[in-house]
C-alpha cells in the first residue's frame, strides 16, 4: 500500500517534470525540470532497492551534469530569436503522432509480455558493497574502459573549449 502510494506520487512527478523539460520555453526552467525529473527517478530507484544507483544518480547527474548544463545555458548569452522556438507546426504534429504511435506499440508489447520466471531465492539489494564487489570482479574490464572514455571526454572538452575564434 505504502509502496503503491510512493510509486504513483513519484511517477506523476516524473512524467510532469519530463513534460516540463520539452515544453519549457526558457532553457533554465528546462534544466531545473530535469533536476526534478532525476530526483523523482532516484526515488523510484530506492523503491526498487537500488540504493547505490539512487545515490550516484543524485550525486553524478543532479550534482555534476546538471550544473554543467546550467553553466553552459547561462554562459551562452542567447539572443531572444535564437532562444528555443519549437519547430514548425507540421513537424511538431508529426513528432507527437510518432510519439503516440511508439507508446501504443510499446504498451502492446508490455501487455502481451509473458512473465519470465523471476528468481525468488533472494531479493537483491543494490547496496554499495554488493555493487562494488560485482564491479571489481566481473565488470573490472568494462570499468577500466569506462575510465578511458572519461579521459577522452575530458581531453576533448578542453581541446574544443580552448579553440581560438579565427
Amino acid at each position: 500500500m505504502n509502496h503503491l502510494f510512493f510509486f504513483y506520487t513519484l511517477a506523476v512527478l516524473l512524467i510532469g517534470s519530463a513534460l516540463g523539460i520539452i515544453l519549457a520555453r526558457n532553457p533554465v526552467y528546462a534544466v531545473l525540470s530535469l533536476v526534478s525529473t532525476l530526483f523523482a527517478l532516484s526515488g523510484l530507484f530506492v523503491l526498487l532497492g537500488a540504493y547505490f544507483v539512487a545515490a550516484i544518480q543524485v550525486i553524478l547527474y543532479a550534482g555534476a551534469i546538471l550544473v554543467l548544463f546550467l553553466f553552459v545555458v547561462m554562459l551562452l548569452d542567447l539572443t531572444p530569436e535564437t532562444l528555443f522556438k519549437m519547430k514548425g507546426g507540421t513537424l511538431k504534429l508529426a513528432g507527437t503522432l510518432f510519439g503516440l504511435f511508439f507508446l501504443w506499440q510499446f504498451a502492446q508489447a508490455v501487455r502481451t509480455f509473458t512473465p519470465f520466471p523471476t528468481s525468488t531465492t533472494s531479493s537483491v539489494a543494490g547496496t554499495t558493497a554488493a555493487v562494488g564487489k560485482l564491479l571489481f570482479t566481473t565488470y573490472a574490464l568494462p570499468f577500466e574502459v569506462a575510465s578511458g572514455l572519461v579521459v577522452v571526454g575530458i581531453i576533448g572538452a578542453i581541446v574544443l573549449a580552448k579553440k581560438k575564434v579565427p
Partner: protein
Amino acid sequence: MTLNHYLILSGILFTIGLVGVITRRNVIMILLSLEILLSAANLAFVAFSRALGDLSGQLMVFFVMIVAAAEVTVGLAIAVVLVRQTGKMGADELRGLKW
C-alpha cells in the same frame, strides 16, 4: 507493484524524450531530451534487475551514467564552440559541410 508498472513508466518517459528530440530545434534542448532517453533506459534496467534478482542491470546503469557524462561534456563543448563561431544554436543551421 509489478515489473509492468515500471516498464510502462519507462516507456512513457522514453516517448517524452523522443518527442523532445524530434520537435526541439535547439542543440541544448536536444541534449536535454537525450538525457531523458538515457534515464528511461536506466529505469528499465533497474526494474529488470529487480525482477530477475540480478545486480548486473544496476552495473549497466552505472556505465550508462559514465557514458552520459562523457557525452554531455563533449556535446556542450561543441555547443559552446558553435555559438562562439556562428552565433546560432539551431540544429537546422549546421550546414558547414555543404558548400
